[in-house]
């Protein structure tokens, strides 16, 4: 269960701009002010190339802004070194991508245990119990010892969600999590997200180009040409 001061933003973007390129400069996002609070299920929507994923990567500290500040639990991430930013990602944030990105040589259980083993907060037995519990809660109990190539697309994505939840992150960041899934699997993923928000009070920020999916979230953040509109 994530802990933070009630109502306080978990992540805050303050006049954030991200540009790339040295000669020809391309602006990915511009002057973004955004707050993500606990218990919030938000969707970032917008046309292709509008900066949805870039915004998500900035929220998740995978990328650093060219200008402006990213504050995680009030701490300015711009002032942190690579290791400290990595630790914040490991302990406070969880990621789910369009492609599952599971390590192919590891079983589903081992993949889910990876973030826990990296954080080293629990002993081996507790980590295994927690990973098995997560997989069971996502309907994957009998697939725990299978490698990703033995799982279907929907199952892989659910394992990726379990891995993202391994360290009980405050915020789950999902980049087109249903982009590669069929309708039934997409529906399953959305139900899991809803349950997580309602039952655990986590914040979920999901990038999607599917307006029907976005409509089922609590908040839609529309972005066009790198600006929130």
């Amino acid at each position, binding site marked *: 269960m994530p802990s933070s001061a009630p109502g306080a933003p978990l992540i805050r973007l303050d006049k954030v701009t991200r540009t790339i390129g040295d000669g020809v400069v391309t602006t990915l996002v511009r002057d973004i002010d955004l707050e993500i609070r606990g218990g919030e299920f938000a969707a970032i929507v917008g046309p292709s190339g509008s900066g949805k*994923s870039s915004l998500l*990567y900035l929220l*998740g500290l*995978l*990328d650093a802004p060219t200008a402006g500040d990213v504050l995680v639990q009030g701490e300015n991430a711009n002032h942190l070194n*690579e*290791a400290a930013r*990595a*630790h*914040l*990602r*490991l*302990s406070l*944030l969880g*990621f789910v*991508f*369009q*492609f599952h*990105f599971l*390590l*192919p*040589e*590891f079983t589903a259980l081992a993949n889910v245990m*990876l*973030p826990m*083993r*990296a*954080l080293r907060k629990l002993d081996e037995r507790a980590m295994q119990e927690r990973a098995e519990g997560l997989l069971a809660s996502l309907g994957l109990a009998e697939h725990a010892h299978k490698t990703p190539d033995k799982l279907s697309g929907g199952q892989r994505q659910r394992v990726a969600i379990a*891995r993202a939840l391994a360290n009980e992150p405050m915020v789950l960041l999902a*980049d*087109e999590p249903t*982009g590669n899934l069929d309708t039934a699997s997409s529906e399953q993923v959305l139900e899991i997200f809803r349950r997580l928000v309602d039952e655990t009070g986590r914040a979920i920020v999901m990038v999607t180009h599917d307006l029907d999916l976005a409509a089922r979230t609590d908040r839609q953040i529309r972005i066009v040409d790198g600006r929130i509109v």
Partner: protein
Amino acid sequence: MKLVLDIAWTHVRSRLRQTLVGMLGVAMGVGFSIMMAALMVGSQNDFIRQLVDSLPHITIRDERRDPPRQPVEDLYQAVQFSGLRTPVTRPGIKNPYAIIATLESQKLGKVAPSVESRAVIRYAGRDTAASVTGIDPKREAKVSKLPSQIRAGSLSSLYASSNAIILGDRLAAKIGARIGNTITLVAGNGRRMSCTVVAFLHAGVANIDETQAYTLNKTAQILAGQIGLVNAIRIRVGHILDARAIAARIETQTGYKSVSWQEANEDLLSAFEIRNVIMYTVVGAILLVASFGTYNIISTITHEKTRDIAILKSLGFTERTVRRIFLLEAIIIGFAGTIIGWGLGYALSRALGSIEFKSPFVDATHLPIEYDVTHYLIATAVALAASGIAGYLPARKAARVHPVDIIRGAS
């Protein structure tokens, strides 16, 4: 660390064929390095052993290292003399038995007096130059391996007849002398002496066997024309490596030139040092070449695993952790290759050691092999260091992967 090891192990195991090739590369490098070191050091030690065993460790001769200081130097600070006549002195060490008693009381080693001279051996119309050394057989047995080198007779045979002589077996063969034959020695002063061959000597070193002859001290003194002459004192020390320091001490005490076996063979030992430098350079080069294989494998793995690296970093793995994963993979390959290399090196050394050969210079019939754990440790250290460096470069590159670049490309 266990997580890093698990991931590294999984990577190297999943690329089994490449990993095996890399391990074999390192194993070959380590194996051949060990074999080469065993052979080089073996032959060097064998040569030194024969040399040191054949001769006394220290020889005190009736010579001074520096010319005696002239009184005029003290009076006028003269820098040059011409027409200087030095007084003629009797050859030989003064009071040799007093010096021997002193050295024995200091327990520096076993001590034996000897008379060294050069002579021409004349037999059956042939003249051959030889080194004739007068010895005291009882004492000589304590300072050299001479008794064990005597063939067809014994060292005590020198007492069996008057003017008895022991010849190096190659020397005897050269002049055609046999046991019981009488040969003629002609000293540098023109003195002649008839001697009876009582035994042969076989040191196993061609230079000694071809030129050396031994008589009793008394016989050598008569040949030199000076009764009581002792122009060399031979010493055998407990630890051969102490010989240089002991020789220096004796020289300070007696004033006579005291030469250790190291000083006598300085040029040979420095040649061995150069040989060692060459050997370790070649060993390093072999292992460096092997490390290119490791570099290639780790580079391939990091290239294939770029997406995994990106996801590990997005999960919260630090650059340091990612670097350690791939560095550890290189070390695993290097270490496994080293273990195989130990076996290979030992097997190659055994195989080489079993090869028979005949050398005109030394007596050995098999290649001398030195089995020394240091060779294994040096090869291991160099192999692991080379593997580490080979792995570090791709590991550093892997650690710098920007996850966003990869995730965007893969989505």
